[in-house]
């Protein structure tokens, strides 16, 4: 094989290889350009921006200092409306007939329909049933934590829960306690 031809061959080969490579480079650049312009690339920057905003929003929601009185009243929802922290529409209680604010309805019903002992007293069919309940061993005052949370009902396994008691003995139901 002659030297100069070899060199020429090598040179030509390199030239054509470079040619092919350049074409492929242009193709790749064009493809990336297209993806960038059409925003097909998962919108890197925009996604990061959205991530940042959503993290901020989540932090704002989870932040306990935000649920202070002044803040909750002036938080704006996505439609630009503000809501008072306690719902203000007024309903009539079906049990006692009083006008109650919606946001105060559940606590009212708890007291009104029997979670409170005073209420139960007045609705009980027979006084003996009431006596049975109280003679179960736990003093009535044990039930006063009701006003804090209904779960104390269920947790106090030794004493029969008021709801269960009523369900079996009494004839009126307390759907809210049953949840």
């Amino acid at each position, binding site marked *: 094989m002659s030297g100069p031809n070899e060199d020429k061959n090598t040179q030509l*080969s390199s030239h*054509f290889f*470079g040619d092919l490579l350049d074409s492929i*480079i242009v193709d*790749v650049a064009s493809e*990336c350009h297209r993806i960038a*312009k059409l925003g097909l690339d998962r919108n890197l*920057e925009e996604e990061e921006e959205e991530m940042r905003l959503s993290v901020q929003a989540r932090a704002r929601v989870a932040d306990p200092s935000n649920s202070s009185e002044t803040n909750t009243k002036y938080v704006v929802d996505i439609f630009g409306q503000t809501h008072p922290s306690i719902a203000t529409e007024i309903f009539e209680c079906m049990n006692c007939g009083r006008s109650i604010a919606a946001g105060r309805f559940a606590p009212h019903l708890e007291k009104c329909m029997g979670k409170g002992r005073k209420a139960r007293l007045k609705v009980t069919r027979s006084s003996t049933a009431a006596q049975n309940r109280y003679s179960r061993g736990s003093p009535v005052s044990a039930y006063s934590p009701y006003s804090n949370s209904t779960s104390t009902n269920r947790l106090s396994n030794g004493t029969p829960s008021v709801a269960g008691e009523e369900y079996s003995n009494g004839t009126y139901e307390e759907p809210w306690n049953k949840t």
Partner: protein
Amino acid sequence: MKHSVNRPPTPDAAEDQGKEPTLQEIINIKLIESGEKERLMELLRERLIDCGWKDEMKALCRAHVKKKGRTNVTVDDLVHLITPKGRASVPDSVKAELLQRIRTFLMSAAL
């Protein structure tokens, strides 16, 4: 009729190339006409994808787009960005394989 119609053809351009195509051009035409250029290009493309070269280039482009902003980037920008790095980062085995095939073609077609 304008006088410019009869003026002699511009000497320099014609003089450099001569009226005959260069060896390079001849081989190029042969490559294209035989379909070998297409095959070589597909082979090179496939090899470059397999070895991750294309992904590297795309990552470079993406980074550049992120920096400059989507709307400001041109194809030219990206080509100029990728070309030096692209040429330098082709794996040796890929380059050798392609060069071998081209050389084979040259030897069979040159004479």
